């Protein structure tokens, strides 16, 4: 048969038609690639408004394909909970993440809900030294099976970059770089260091970082000691330390940082590149590598030198931040060091006045630029399967700059008008990312853009514990201790409920908590009474209801709940949120106060107030998509025999 004849016959045969069609996306044909952009905190109302203003032309293209859909979020609508819903297809009753903060049900001691470090089981002590005989472990506390296991089991490549609530990353066949939940080298969610000789800046109460007093003894040199991770090989776990000498030239308004054989010259107002530091546990034998960025806030008249939280070095990670382990090293080799901590934007430094709005935005821009580099790098080599990429920038920056959007914010008038366009610019940048994904699209690629929740203003703080005390649910015995250590002011024997975390309320049960006061048979009635009372709380300043819904957890999540689950989830009304003091269990004097922290946007409210967003090239078959549906729906785009069990398939054409 001649070639021309073959082509003619082949072109007419149904099989050939099918084969030709395989190159284009046809409804129901398996997609070869799915690009999923996880945009933390993208709000459907803001998005809609920016699309109509013409700020987001690429999002408008996606909206024309699959519509702009509100995506049901988790309850409570906190990122660790919501992203766990996305990953597992189930709620907190299955994956076990109810809040950023959980508490030990017996001692009430709070702990980070997403991961924990387990020390070595056996240690030999020789004088001050502690030599472990087995390795320490980091444990992911999120339960449930990730939906992409069904894809990788079928040989479909999966890459998840900066995946939230996955530290340490799941062992499996997917390529994962951990995101939200990844600690810094000090084990916190981000702890900056601020060196200064300005007495006004030196305070013990700065949370989110440490302020270190330094002094120039007349030689224009400051010796700055940088505290790193704890040294578990020494008794008492003292912090490992690196010394930096900072030489200042006040005439030039510049300084030189000499650290471990490296010199970095910076003028006032400049950020350094990443500086690698080696912390010795046992000198020349055992050390860990960390990276940090310096920022020279001021040299004259006082030194003000900021050092970012010490990040896990992606080239040589001290803790597992990727799977396979060398994935982060490969990225660092190709792109240079990058922020590895889960909350890279230093919101605490802005909240505490260490960084100004402008300086914070510079740092946030560095983070976003790094993230864009990572995204373009992965997109350029993405050929098959699923690529998930997470952006934190919208979430954390809108937390800090919602005040520029909302005239009702107590800080609206005092915020420099220069920053009024910050949120719009961020959305525009995310739109360019969507545009890049659309450009990479071929006939067999689907694009999905989703967020875990939207946003609401945080203008008024509700001190849940103070309210409980005023209403007789808690008994304060020491008025001077009410703002001090957690629960220092409380008589547990006569306290029936306490708040901890952002949305959680716990009953002080006699069969669970140490010195608990409420017998099990009274719990149901107490919860009903609390629900009724909480939903009636009104703000005397505005006359508005503070709490939209108080959810009794066992009603909302029927079935067996873990002992660390809250007894009630508080769904705040728009404009309100639990105070920072509530999250750590203290009792300020006033029940409701103005929120004067730059952290002016929130999503830790009622889930109905802050739905997420779903934009997609695939139209939907259901009107009420939810985060829990996404794993099953994304999996349905591929040719897999068994879809993940959680959620529903919402993609039209792939739902047969």
């Amino acid at each position, binding site marked *: 048969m001649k070639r021309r004849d073959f082509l003619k016959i082949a072109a007419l045969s149904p099989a050939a038609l099918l084969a030709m069609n395989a190159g284009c996306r046809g409804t129901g044909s398996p997609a070869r690639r799915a690009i999923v952009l996880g945009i933390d905190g993208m709000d459907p109302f803001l998005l809609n408004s920016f699309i109509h203003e013409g700020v987001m032309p690429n999002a408008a293209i996606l909206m024309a394909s699959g519509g702009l859909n509100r995506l049901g979020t988790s309850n409570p609508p906190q990122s660790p909970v919501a992203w766990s819903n996305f990953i597992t297809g189930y709620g907190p009753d299955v994956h076990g993440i109810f809040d950023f903060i959980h508490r030990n049900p017996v001692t009430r001691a709070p702990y980070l809900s997403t991961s924990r470090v387990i020390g070595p089981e056996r240690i030999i002590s020789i004088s001050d030294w502690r030599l472990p005989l087995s390795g320490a472990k980091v444990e992911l506390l999120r339960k449930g099976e990730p939906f992409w296991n069904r894809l990788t089991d079928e040989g479909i490549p999966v890459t998840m970059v900066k995946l939230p609530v996955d530290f340490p990353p799941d062992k499996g066949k997917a390529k994962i770089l951990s995101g939200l939940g990844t600690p810094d080298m000090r084990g916190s969610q981000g702890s900056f260091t601020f060196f200064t000789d300005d007495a006004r800046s030196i305070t013990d109460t700065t949370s989110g970082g440490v302020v270190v007093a330094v002094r120039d003894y007349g030689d224009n040199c400051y010796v700055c000691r940088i505290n790193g991770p704890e040294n578990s090989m020494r008794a008492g776990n003292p912090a490992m330390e690196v010394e930096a000498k900072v030489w200042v*030239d006040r005439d030039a308004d510049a300084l030189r940082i000499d650290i471990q054989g490296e*010199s*970095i010259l910076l003028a006032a107002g400049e950020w350094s590149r990443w500086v690698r530091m080696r912390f010795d546990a046992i000198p020349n034998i055992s050390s860990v590598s960390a990276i940090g960025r310096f920022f020279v806030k001021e040299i004259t008249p006082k030194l003000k030198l900021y050092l970012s939280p010490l990040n896990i070095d992606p080239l040589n990670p001290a803790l597992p931040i990727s799977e396979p382990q060398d994935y982060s*090293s490969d990225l660092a*080799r190709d792109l240079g060091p990058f922020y590895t901590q889960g909350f890279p934007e230093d919101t605490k430094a802005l909240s505490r006045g260490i960084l100004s709005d402008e300086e914070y935005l510079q740092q946030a821009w560095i983070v976003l630029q790094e993230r864009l580099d990572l995204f373009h790098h992965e997109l350029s080599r993405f050929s098959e399967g699923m690529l998930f990429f997470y952006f934190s920038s919208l979430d954390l920056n809108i937390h800090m700059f919602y005040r520029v959007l909302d005239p009702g914010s107590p800080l609206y008038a005092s915020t420099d008008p220069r920053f009024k366009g910050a949120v719009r610019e961020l959305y525009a940048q995310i739109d360019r990312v969507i545009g890049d994904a659309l450009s990479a699209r071929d006939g067999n690629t689907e694009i999905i853009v989703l967020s875990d929740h939207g946003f609401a203003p945080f203008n008024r703080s509700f001190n849940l514990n103070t309210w409980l005390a005023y209403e007789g649910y808690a008994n304060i015995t020491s008025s001077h201790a009410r703002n001090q250590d957690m629960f220092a002011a409380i008589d547990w024997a006569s306290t029936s409920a306490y708040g901890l975390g952002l949305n959680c309320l716990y009953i002080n049960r006699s069969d669970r908590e140490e010195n608990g006061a409420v017998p099990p048979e009274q719990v149901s009635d107490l919860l009903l009474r609390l629900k009724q009372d909480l939903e009636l709380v009104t703000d005397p300043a505005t006359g508005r209801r503070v709490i939209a819904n108080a959810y009794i957890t066992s009603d909302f999540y029927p079935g067996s709940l873990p002992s660390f689950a809250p007894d009630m989830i508080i769904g705040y009304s728009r404009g309100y949120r639990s105070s920072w003091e509530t999250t750590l269990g203290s009792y300020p004097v006033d029940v409701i106060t103005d929120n004067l922290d730059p952290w002016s946007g929130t999503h830790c409210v009622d889930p109905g107030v802050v739905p997420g967003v779903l934009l997609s090239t695939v139209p939907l078959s259901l009107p009420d998509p939810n985060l829990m549906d996404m794993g099953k729906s994304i999996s349905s785009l591929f040719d897999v025999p068994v879809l993940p069990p959680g959620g529903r398939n919402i993609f039209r054409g792939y739902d047969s």
Partner: protein
Amino acid sequence: MTNAAGILINGFFDILLIPFRTLPHFWGLLFISLLSGLGMIMVFKFVSNQDKILRLRRRMGGEILGILLHLSSPGTVMNFAGKLIWSNTLYLGYLLKPLLVIAIPFMLVWGQLDARYGSAVMDESDPVTVTVFFENGLPLKDSLQIGVSGLELIPPVLFIDTLDEASFRILPLGDSLPNLKIEGVSIQVGRTGSWNGCRIHRGFDSGNSLKRLLTPWIARVDRMPEGPGSGYYSLPDVRYGVLGGYWSWIAVFLLFSSLSAIAGAKFFKVKI
């Protein structure tokens, strides 16, 4: 004399690495590491007394066996242990001569590898901090003359009176080989050629001692009365991806030269 020797040694390594000029850095490093291991084991073979070493090793084997066979007799064990310690001392003595002979080429190779594979080349997006030391005191701030070619000078210039040091930042421009001129002193900065495996200057010095042969990453400059006597550039280290980890050039060199030496000893029947 030192200068001529330096040129010869640098030139020798430049020629040796010609086949690797267009390959990634790792391959040149690997080649020199393997060659060094092999070279050192061959030097060891010809410089050491192989017969004596063989006899001594046999004796030491016998002494260890003697200990193991007489564990129930502490006196005999002590006797053999004493002999074994003496044999070890003798063994170290036998090693001394070849090690002394190997030491100088080893240090030369070490210096060359450090100069060629220890630091990253300057990156156009990442300013490098240069620090210069004025032995005769800092010049006046406004009078310091800094000329650049193939570089961009990024202000400000920082003066540290207590150290007699001035610091500033530079960025490389294009592919031309960068050069600095400070108070009339001409200084090579960064890479000395445009190929992979060329030396990368991380500092300069006006001294002319033998030490210069072992530190080929330091550019030699002519001393000027008002000019800087020495200085360094803060270039980041390089890491090499080997066996799933990221290693310094030292780790790569020690691993592969050892492997090559062990293989060479096996192949050429060298007693070590």
